């Protein structure tokens, strides 16, 4: 091994670190450790001058290992790795000691915190000694894309990708495209026709040379990894058309846009849905509107219509989240009912009016002016629906403890519309399993970062868009679909994809094929070679989490950058000071 020349850089982070930890004492201590060529402190190590200092030192002092004692590696490991690269040193010859989050931020006692920081720095110095130069690998990127779900999201993404010249396979479970939007009449707040939004798209998708649509079909299996998946698609049992036998396609990326299903209103027993004939759901009303025939079960034109918000949403009993689109849809119904039947009285019974989107507040104002009666109820004090007496001249009576006036109000209704929220589809678990993505407690697919990576997932090459991620309206759904398409287009343009060097690998000389690791991988990166009787890790799928490394009873699996030697020497260092 070449002579060890470690550079130790202790950051003050302004006063974030320096006010609790004696950074000079740390540097002085580091200088006494064998193999440490120099140790320096600086106000902000992550600043340009800080990084330049490191780059210059690496060149001038021939440093071959770098320890940066600063913040969490989550924060700035990339920054300092890049400094090493610029200086011509392999970027993995760096180790960070977290003396901010794990030290100065959680301690007040300078003496103790400084001792702890010394131990953390010493541990890093011990570890970095055993760091290895690692190179990332690159894999081919197949430009074909699989899209699951032929709603507005799936079609938008498909057109975006296909228009750029890429082959798209669009898999739709039903016998037609359009998804949930195909069940809608007008859209809020501008009252555009959903049919107009969809028809043009459906036609283009069906006729597009680069889009192959599989109707009545589902994904059966997805194998492989980013850039190199194979998907098998086959007809839904019994209804399979020409695509009934499984078809295998080669793809590089997947977008899941499987949408939502509406909340089952009969679960809120309270409202009598299914028992009272004129209590209907928003989608049933939508159907009447589309047919131009808003009537009660008895065939009468309703004189009083009551719309109740948050059915299944914003309730600890059902779904705690807000379904986001129901408030504006309710206002839209008020408009549509009024324009069909100007003599109708509409009551809108709500918890809060969520009018957060572009044009929504204005839409709310216009609805208020159209003499809709707004009644506010307390979350846990739901309105009560009774069947009316013949003398009441209406079908039902609704009792509401009106929150703003504080009064107990009774209103007539011939038709009650329940604004049912969105929920994850019952088959979402199956989809999640097939494409290897995660779901939250409510069943929504989980994005890899809720703010910065809204359409990516923890499985590289698998994206999510639209209402399968969480309730959202059409503009947000379309934006996500286009975002996912854009992410994929950027990857296709590069033709190759770099895979991080921090993956785990199986030493074939040591693996005895016990198969203990096979089902543990959360990224399905481990495959078993039946001929060699050995397990193998697909590096492009591996995220280096280390589960298999820990589980491998024969130490045949090595976690690159997290070898036993590295981790144990770090521990020894930590305990030595």
């Amino acid at each position, binding site marked *: 091994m070449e002579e060890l020349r470690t550079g130790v850089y202790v950051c003050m982070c302004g006063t974030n670190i320096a006010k609790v930890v004696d950074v000079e004492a740390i540097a002085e201590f580091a200088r006494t450790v064998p193999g440490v060529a120099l140790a320096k402190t600086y106000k902000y190590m992550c600043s340009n001058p800080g990084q330049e200092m490191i780059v210059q030192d690496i060149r001038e002092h021939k440093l071959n290992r770098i320890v940066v004692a600063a913040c969490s590696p989550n924060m700035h490991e990339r920054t300092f790795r890049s400094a090493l690269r610029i200086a011509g040193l392999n970027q993995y010859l760096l180790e960070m000691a977290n003396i901010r989050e794990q030290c100065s931020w959680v301690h007040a006692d300078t003496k103790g915190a400084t001792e702890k920081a010394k131990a953390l720095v010493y541990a890093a110095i011990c570890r970095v000694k055993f760091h290895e130069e690692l190179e990332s690998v690159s894999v081919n990127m197949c430009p074909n894309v699989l899209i699951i779900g032929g709603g507005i999201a799936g079609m938008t993404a498909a057109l975006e990708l296909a228009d750029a010249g890429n082959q798209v396979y669009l898999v739709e479970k039903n016998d037609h495209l359009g998804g949930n939007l195909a069940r809608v009449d007008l859209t809020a707040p501008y009252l555009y026709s959903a049919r107009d939004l969809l028809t043009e798209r459906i036609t283009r998708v069906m006729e597009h040379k680069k889009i192959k649509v599989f109707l009545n079909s589902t994904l059966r299996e997805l194998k492989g990894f980013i850039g190199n998946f194979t998907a098998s698609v086959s007809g839904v049992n019994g209804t399979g058309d020409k695509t009934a036998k499984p078809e295998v396609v080669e793809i590089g990326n997947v977008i899941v846009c499987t949408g939502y299903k509406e909340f089952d209103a009969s679960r809120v027993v309270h409202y009598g849905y299914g028992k009272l004939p004129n209590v209907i759901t928003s989608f049933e009303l939508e159907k009447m509107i589309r047919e131009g025939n808003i009537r009660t079960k008895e065939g009468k034109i309703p004189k009083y219509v009551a719309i109740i918000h948050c059915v299944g949403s914003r309730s600890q009993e059902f779904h705690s989240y807000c379904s986001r689109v129901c408030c504006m849809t309710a206002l839209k119904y008020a408009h549509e009912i009024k324009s069909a039947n100007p003599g109708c009285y509409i009551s809108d019974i709500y918890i809060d009016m969520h009018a957060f989107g572009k044009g929504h507040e204005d839409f709310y104002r216009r609805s208020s002016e159209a003499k809709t009666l707004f009644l506010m109820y307390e979350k846990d004090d739901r309105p009560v629906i009774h069947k009316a007496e013949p003398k009441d001249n209406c079908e039902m009576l609704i009792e509401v403890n009106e929150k703003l006036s504080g009064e107990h109000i009774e209103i007539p209704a011939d038709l009650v519309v329940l604004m049912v929220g969105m929920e994850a589809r019952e088959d979402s678990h199956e989809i999640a399993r097939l494409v290897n993505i995660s779901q939250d407690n409510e069943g929504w697919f989980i994005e890899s970062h809720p703010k910065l990576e809204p359409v990516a997932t923890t499985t590289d090459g698998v994206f999510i868009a639209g209402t399968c991620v969480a309730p959202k309206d059409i503009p947000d759904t379309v934006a996500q679909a286009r975002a996912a398409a854009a992410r994929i287009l950027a990857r296709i343009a590069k033709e190759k994809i770099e895979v991080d060097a921090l993956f785990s690998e199986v030493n074939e*000389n*040591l*693996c*005895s*094929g*016990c*198969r*203990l*690791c*096979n*089902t*543990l991988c959360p990224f399905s990166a481990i495959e*078993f070679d039946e001929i060699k009787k050995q397990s193998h890790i697909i590096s492009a799928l591996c995220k280096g989490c280390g*589960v298999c490394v*820990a*589980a*491998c*009873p*024969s*130490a*045949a699996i090595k976690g690159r950058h997290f070898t*036993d030697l590295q981790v*144990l020497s770090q521990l020894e260092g930590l305990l030595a000071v």
Partner: protein
Amino acid sequence: METNRQKLKMAVYWAASCGGCCVSVLDVHEKLFDVVAAADLLFWPIALDTKYRDVEEMPDNHLDLTLFNGAIRNSENEHLAKLLRKKSKILVAYGSCAHLGGIPGLANFTSKEEIFKRVYHESESTINPEKTLPSPVCEVKEGTITIPEFYDDVRSLSQVTDVDYFIPGCPPQTERLVEVFTAIVTGAELPPKGSVVGAGTRTQCDECIREKTENKQIKKFYRPWEIADDGITCFLEQGVICMGPATRSGCGYRCIKGNAPCRGCYGPPAGVPDPGAKMMSAVAGIIDEKEPGEISKVVADIADPAGLFYRFSLPVSLIRKKVS
């Protein structure tokens, strides 16, 4: 075997051991004639009436080969380990106890004090009203009596002296011993110092022909007698903990062939610093429960986990001994 070649000078010694290793040497059966034709056994307490003094009087490096079995439990074991090291060109840690600390090493879960208390004060067969305890030096009217000092913990051979090779097993398979012995006698090129010899580089699973699938999802662990083993399926898949995945091959998976799970006597393959911890984390990975309470219930079915996972390797493991 050639007889005109200079005969090998050899010793076999037992420290803290059960005697099984020495018996395994005798298990060469008629090959023993080949052994004695090729080697002079100068020191072998189980079979020959030689004294420690005979060894002490040998010049350094007088012995070509010493097979040292047993762990280091007391000062006598340590003295002989160091003495035989000095007198031997090749010192082999022979068997699990010398290699890893072995069964006697399980005493590291307790202390000298606790062992003495149990053995000399509490045990049902002991009457000791004076509460006498063994003492290394004892004055009686005839003079001074000394006995070896009982240490607080057990160590493997390499933890007290420099070891050339390790032959694992409880006891080592005699066939492996013959192979190693033959290699030394015939002057074959020996592996690098510190190697484990007479064993494979992979694990039991490499040789084991039981059917292994990825279906290792366990909701309940069983002791071997609690299930009707089908004789075909991997023990782990039947919920029986088999140390095979964390244990070096070389014995010919004899326990498993006899329908008993591997107990781990061949020790870990290279690169495993702590086979007990390794096997525990492997087993943790196959528990098919998500809730902590449910997981605890499954784990509770594992009888004597410390003794199970560290049966042979406690003194060389990371935890090594109980810290009082």
